C-alpha cells in the first residue's frame, strides 16, 4: 500500500469539518474580546482606581436600567460609564426594574459586589441615613435588582436619589418619576431624566424613525445649528443654554439625525444625545437598535457628567464618553492600561500561547 492510498483512505474518511461546529459570529467574537478587555481591567483593579475618587458626594444617584446593557453584550460601555460616575463622586447603583434583575448580576460580578450596601441604603429611613450609608459606597458600583418593585424606586427618590432613565418603564412610570418625584428630590443638584424614558413617555409605540426625526426637531429647536468650526468636542465647552437636546450621528433606519449637532465625533453607529440642565449637562448614548429604549450606559454617562464637581472636568469626561475610556487627566485617575501589559496579567509564555 503506497502513501497515496493511505492518504486516500484518511481523506475519504470525511472527518468532521469546522462547518458543523458552532462558532461565535464575528460580531460576537468582537464583543467577547471587548468584554474580556474590560473584565481584565476591572479584575486588575482599574475600576477600584477610578473609584478612589476625591470627588464630592453631594448627590446619591440611582441609575435604573443601564445594567441591562450587560446582557446585550455591551458591558464595556456600562462599566466605563460606571467608572465615570465613580470619578464624578456619585454613588452608582446599578439596578433593574425588570423582574429578571436585568444585567445587574453579571455586572456586579464584574466590578465587585456591593449589593449589600445598596440594599442597606434602600432600607435607610431618612436622607441622612441614606447618605451615611452611601458614603462608604461613594464612587462604587453597586448592583441591586429592583425586580419590578416600583415602591423601591420611589423609596430611593424619597431618600433624595435621582432615578435616571429606566427604559423598561411605562410612560406612566416615567411621568411619575419625572413629574413628581424628581421635583421633590431637593437635595440633588441636578434633575435628570434619561431621554430614552422621555421618548417612551412622549412617543410610546412610535417607530424609531419617527422618534429620530422628533429628536432631530428637538435638537434644531433647542440648540440650532452648531457654530461654524465648532462641530468637535470643543463645542461642549461653549456656554450652554438652559436646556439642550442634541443628537449626533445617525439612526439605523436611515432617518438621519443631524450629525455632530453637539459635536461628538462617533463611529456613525451610535446616537449621542446631550441634555443640559443649568450648568450641568448630560450625554446619552444610544445604540441604534436600542434607540427608543435608551442605550448602553446612556444614563450612567449622563450621571457622570451631571455629577461633575467642576465644569473644568467636563471636557475630560466628555472625552471619556467618546472613547469609552476613563479620561486621562480627570481627578488624577489613570486610563485603563493595556490589558496585555498591566501588572499582574498572566500572559502565557511567548513560545506557548494558550497554555
Amino acid at each position, binding site marked *: 500500500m503506497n502513501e497515496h492510498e493511505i492518504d486516500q483512505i484518511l481523506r475519504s474518511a470525511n*472527518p*468532521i469539518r469546522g462547518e458543523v461546529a*458552532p462558532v461565535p459570529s464575528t460580531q460576537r467574537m468582537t464583543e467577547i474580546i471587548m468584554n474580556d478587555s474590560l473584565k481584565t481591567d476591572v479584575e486588575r483593579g482599574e475600576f477600584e482606581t477610578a473609584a478612589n475618587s476625591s470627588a464630592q458626594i453631594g448627590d446619591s444617584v440611582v441609575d435604573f436600567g443601564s445594567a441591562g446593557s450587560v446582557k446585550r453584550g455591551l458591558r464595556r460601555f456600562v462599566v466605563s460609564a460606571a467608572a465615570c460616575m465613580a470619578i464624578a463622586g456619585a454613588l452608582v447603583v446599578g439596578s433593574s426594574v425588570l423582574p429578571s434583575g436585568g444585567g445587574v448580576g453579571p455586572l456586579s460580578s464584574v466590578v465587585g459586589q456591593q449589593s449589600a450596601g445598596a440594599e442597606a441604603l434602600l432600607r435607610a429611613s431618612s436622607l441622612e441615613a441614606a447618605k451615611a450609608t452611601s458614603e462608604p459606597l461613594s464612587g462604587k458600583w453597586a448592583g441591586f435588582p429592583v425586580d419590578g418593585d416600583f415602591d423601591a424606586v420611589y423609596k430611593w427618590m424619597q431618600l433624595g436619589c435621582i432615578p435616571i432613565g429606566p427604559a423598561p418603564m411605562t410612560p406612566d412610570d416615567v411621568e411619575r418619576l419625572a413629574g413628581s418625584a424628581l421635583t421633590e428630590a431637593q437635595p440633588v443638584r441636578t434633575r435628570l431624566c434619561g431621554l430614552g424614558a422621555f421618548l417612551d413617555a412622549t412617543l410610546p409605540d412610535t417607530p424609531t424613525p419617527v422618534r429620530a426625526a422628533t429628536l432631530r426637531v428637538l435638537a434644531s429647536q433647542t440648540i440650532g445649528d452648531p457654530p461654524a468650526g465648532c462641530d468637535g468636542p470643543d463645542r461642549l465647552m461653549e456656554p450652554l443654554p438652559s436646556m439642550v437636546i442634541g443628537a449626533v450621528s445617525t439612526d439605523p433606519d436611515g432617518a438621519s439625525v443631524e450629525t455632530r449637532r453637539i459635536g461628538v465625533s462617533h463611529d456613525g453607529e451610535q446616537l449621542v444625545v446631550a441634555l443640559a440642565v443649568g450648568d450641568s449637562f448630560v450625554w446619552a448614548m444610544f445604540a441604534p437598535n436600542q434607540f427608543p429604549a435608551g442605550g448602553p450606559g446612556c444614563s450612567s454617562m449622563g450621571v457622570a457628567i451631571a455629577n461633575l464637581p467642576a465644569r473644568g472636568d467636563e471636557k475630560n469626561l466628555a472625552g471619556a464618553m467618546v472613547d469609552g475610556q476613563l479620561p486621562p487627566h480627570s481627578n488624577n485617575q489613570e486610563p485603563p492600561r493595556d490589558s496585555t501589559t498591566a501588572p499582574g496579567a498572566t500572559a502565557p509564555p511567548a513560545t506557548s500561547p494558550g497554555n
Partner: protein
Amino acid sequence: MTPEGMTARRWTADVYEPFATAIAGYLARRTEISRVEDLVSETFLTAWRRREDAPSESALRPWLFVIARNLLTNQRRRDATTERTRSLLLLVRGVPEDFDDMLIAQDRNAEVALLVNQLAPLDAELLTLSMWDELDRHEIGVILDMTPAVVSVRLHRARARFALLVETSEYFSPAVTSCGAARHVGSGTATDPSPEGQNA
C-alpha cells in the same frame, strides 16, 4: 466605536473570520462538539491577548493551531472524564446522500477513526494535521515544534504504521473483499462529498 473597538473589529475580520472554521474543525475532531464553541472563543481570545506576539500572516494559521492545541491540552488536564474524551478523539462523520451510502460511510469512518486511534498520539496528530487539517509540513512543524524535515520523516513513518494497521484491518483487508468492504479502499468518493474525497 472606540479605537480599541475598531481595532478589535478589524482584528476579528483579519484573523477570526478566515481561520475560525479551520480551528473549529480541528477542535471538533478532538473534543466533544459542545465544547467547540467555547474553545474556539478561547483560542481567539488568547490570540487577541497575544496579538503583539503574533507571527506574520503566513504563519498565523499554525500559531492559532498551537493555541487551540494548548487549550485542548489544558482542558484535558482539567477534565475528569479524560478517558471519555479520549475515546471521542478523531471521530469522523460521513455526509452521504442516501441511506446505504450512509451505512457504508459510517462503517468506513468508524474504522478509520479506530485505526487512527490505534496509532501513537504523535503519529495520529501528524496524520490528521496533514490530511484533515490540510497543513503543510512547515505549519505542522510550528505546531509540534519540529523542523519541516523532521515532520516529513515522521509523517512518512506514521503513514507506514497506519498502512500496517489498514492491511491488518478486517474492513480493509483484501481477505474480506468479497464481503464488499475492501472495495471502498481508495475508491470511496461516492460516499464522500468533501473536497478531499472528491479529489481522492
